[in-house]
């Protein structure tokens, strides 16, 4: 099971539609401070259904939509599409957010609810959505495992299994 493709349009600093192709093994993402690297990681988490805007460095979910630059107006919509592949099968998860505060999820291009997405991911990835969140180590968060209470760590190991 692999991530194959990530498409970001209007999410944070990615005002223009941008596509990443992922291979197996290790992909490094490099670039200057403030260029948008962490925004790529957050786009992935957001597409996977992240509910905490705070963990995405936003006060409200609408803040993930491109807010404009010095010579550019803000956009009205953010969209992220993630394509996963396994044994020749392909699954595309999508998420959109609008300035109005509305949002939607997509499975293979068709509108769906968050729990449909979570169920589709669980079948495809064979890790629960809660367990999967441990696969994202955010900037400055690497010591997370050491800082948890022992009971939290236990729960994590149960969810990750």
């Amino acid at each position, binding site marked *: *099971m*692999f*991530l194959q493709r990530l498409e970001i349009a209007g999410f*944070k*600093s*990615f*005002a223009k539609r*941008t596509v*990443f*192709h*992922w*291979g*197996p*093994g*290790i*992909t*490094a*993402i*490099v*670039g*200057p401070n*403030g*260029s*948008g*690297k*962490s925004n*790529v*990681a957050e786009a*992935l988490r957001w597409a996977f259904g992240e509910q905490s805007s705070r963990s995405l460095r936003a006060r409200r979910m609408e803040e993930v939509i*491109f807010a*404009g*630059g*010095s*010579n*550019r107006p803000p956009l009205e919509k953010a969209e992220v599409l993630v394509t996963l592949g396994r044994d020749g099968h392909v699954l595309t998860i999508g998420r959109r957010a609008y300035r109005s505060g509305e949002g939607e999820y997509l499975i293979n291009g068709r509108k769906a609810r968050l729990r449909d997405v979570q169920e589709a991911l669980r079948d495809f*990835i064979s*890790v629960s959505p809660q367990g*999967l969140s*441990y*696969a*994202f*180590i*955010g*900037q*400055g968060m*690497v*010591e*997370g*495992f*050491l800082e948890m*209470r*022992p*009971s*939290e*760590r*236990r729960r994590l*190991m*149960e969810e*990750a*299994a």
Partner: protein
Amino acid sequence: ARSRFHEAFQEVSSRFQELFQSFFPGGQAGLSLTAGPEEGVEIWARPPGKKVRSLNQLSGGERALTALAVLFSLLDVNSFPFCVLDEADAMLDEANVQRFAKGLQELSRRTQFIVITHNRRTIEAADAVYGISMGPDGVSHCLSLSLKGVLSS
């Protein structure tokens, strides 16, 4: 379910011991279950030459590397398909980045890694590289880069 957890716990604990020893040659570490009102998992770690002490006495780089050993043991035992690391190597010195990069390469046979990094040695360990840049208009772009091109700059 309880014995299944104990079984998984044993696997993760011994994998963590192995990984810690590859990261800290001559060191020892492990996981232990706490009884108490709330059951929990404790981490103990002793870098080589030092006495076992509380984790908060470890240095910044030692803490990061110990946490990565815990993460890697979970990814490995539970066969996680992918993992995204955002500057997890920021606190590591040259020798430890090398060990971290080797650990990444070993695990990457089964787990796909996306690693945001400023570190040359980590970039060298990658199979592919994406460069991110932002124009004066505040818009980010990506560019697929060849490893040679990245490392010569």
